[in-house]
Every structure is written in structure tokens, then in C-alpha cells.
């Protein structure tokens, strides 16, 4: 068990080795492409290989939420879904998102962002996560 709020079952479809980092091309159960960038030492220690089922782990605070526009951005991971529930705090808000395929993820964004995006339950959104913010567990 780990504290990170978001864990998605994925399949490693490709492992691209660099001298320091390794890029893992992943596929969710719904066939959505995800990318994780991990250190070569982790990939080697965990013996990550193509065809393996692993868990993509990312913190709620690393998830950005966009409404509509999400093209032309360097982040590798863009997951489409809907706002399931918004829990407002004093500074930050927790957004429960239901992805296509009914998987749930959580994003923590500022209250200001919720107001600016006029986010409400049921809104179609895109969750954006940088490849380097995605960890792998198995």
C-alpha cells in the first residue's frame, strides 16, 4: 500500500532505454496510451519488460485538469473523463474524476482553478500528467 492517490492498471507495450532514463510506453485497460519516464536503475532493478502488467502510480497533486483544449502541450499523458465530485477545501480542491472506462483518479488543484474553469460535476475534462510524474509499481 502506498499513499499516492492514483493507480491505474497498465500493460507495458514498449521499453525505450536511454543512458539515464527509460521511457515506458503503457496501455490502459481502455487502450489509452500512457508514458512513464523512470530511471534506468529502477527499470533494471524491477526488470521491467514489454508485455508485463504493472501499475502506473501518480500523486493527485501532479494531475492538471483542462477543459476542452489539451493539444500542443508537452505533457505525454492526457486522460479523458468527467468530473465525478468536487470537494472544496480552503485553498485546494479535490476533484474526483471518472475516466472513460470508469476508472477513477483524483486531482488536487487550487480553488482558484476550480472557479476559473467553472468546474462542476459531470463536466468533460482532460487530466494531464507529465511522464516524469508517473511511477511504476508491480
Amino acid at each position, binding site marked *: 500500500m502506498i499513499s499516492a492517490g492514483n493507480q491505474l492498471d497498465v500493460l507495458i507495450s514498449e521499453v*525505450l*532505454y*536511454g*543512458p*539515464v*532514463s*527509460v*521511457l515506458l510506453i503503457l496501455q490502459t485497460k481502455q487502450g489509452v496510451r500512457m*508514458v512513464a*519516464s523512470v530511471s534506468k536503475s529502477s527499470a533494471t532493478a524491477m526488470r521491467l519488460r514489454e508485455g508485463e502488467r504493472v501499475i502506473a502510480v501518480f500523486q493527485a*497533486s*501532479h494531475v*492538471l*485538469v*483542462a*477543459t*476542452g*483544449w*489539451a493539444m*500542443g*502541450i*508537452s*505533457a*505525454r499523458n492526457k486522460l479523458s473523463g468527467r468530473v465525478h465530485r468536487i470537494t472544496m*477545501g*480552503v*485553498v*485546494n480542491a479535490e476533484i474526483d474524476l471518472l475516466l472513460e472506462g470508469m476508472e477513477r483518479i483524483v*486531482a*488536487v*488543484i*487550487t480553488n*482558484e*482553478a*476550480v472557479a476559473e*474553469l467553472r468546474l462542476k460535476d459531470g463536466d468533460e475534462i482532460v487530466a*494531464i500528467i*507529465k*511522464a*516524469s510524474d508517473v511511477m511504476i509499481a508491480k
Partner: protein
Amino acid sequence: MLTSARNTLYGTITSITPGAVHSEVTLGVGTGAIVATITNESVTRLEMKVGDPAYALIKSSSLILAKTKPQRISARNVLHVNVNEVIKGAVNAEVKLSLGDATMNAIITNDSCDELMLKKGDEAYAIIKASSVIIGMV
């Protein structure tokens, strides 16, 4: 203080909004502002108050880049930058940027770099979540 973070932006604290656990701190930098969410404990420990000189520390891997300005995104910080240099590695690319007089660095995947066709002289937008910003006191 010397740190490994590749982005250090100096400014003055313009607002502190305390929450239950986190506070939102705004740092005026040049003509713009950087928003950071940090713990209340840090605000107290560092004796932060409006008007104090401070700096924002951001790891280069926390920057997301876009060629056009994202309009509807939850990230609090969207900085208009210029691309000074693009250095491709085996997996990742380092993008050297300038924000006014300050220089910044972003690490993105080569794939993203190619997709965005980033090159020297381009205008771009650096997107940074408030929770990825560390505040240091001068």
C-alpha cells in the same frame, strides 16, 4: 543557497492565503507572478510575510511546455517564455528558456519536443502547478 533545482526566480511576496493545511503564496516576479501552495508549517517556520523578498525554486522536470497559450487549464502558473536552446538527449530534451531577464530550464521528452517542433527563437508557455513550486527566503 545553492540547490540542484534549475529554476530560481527572485521576487517579493505579494499575498499569503492560509488554508487548513496549505497556504497559497504569491510571489511577484518582474511584471508577473508565481503562485505556490506550501504547507502552513513552512509559512510559520520561515516567518513569511507580505513584502518579504523570496525566491521560487522549481525543478526542471516540473515544467510542461506549450506553443500556444492554454486557456482552460488548472495550473496556476502559465509563463510566457522564449526558447534559447534545445538540447536533445537519448530520451529527454533540455529546453533552455528565458523569462524576462531570468533563465529557466525544462526537461521534456524528445517525443514532445518533436511534436511541438520546439526550436531556438520560439515563443512558448511554461506551465507549472502551484504545488510544484518551493519558496525560499532571501
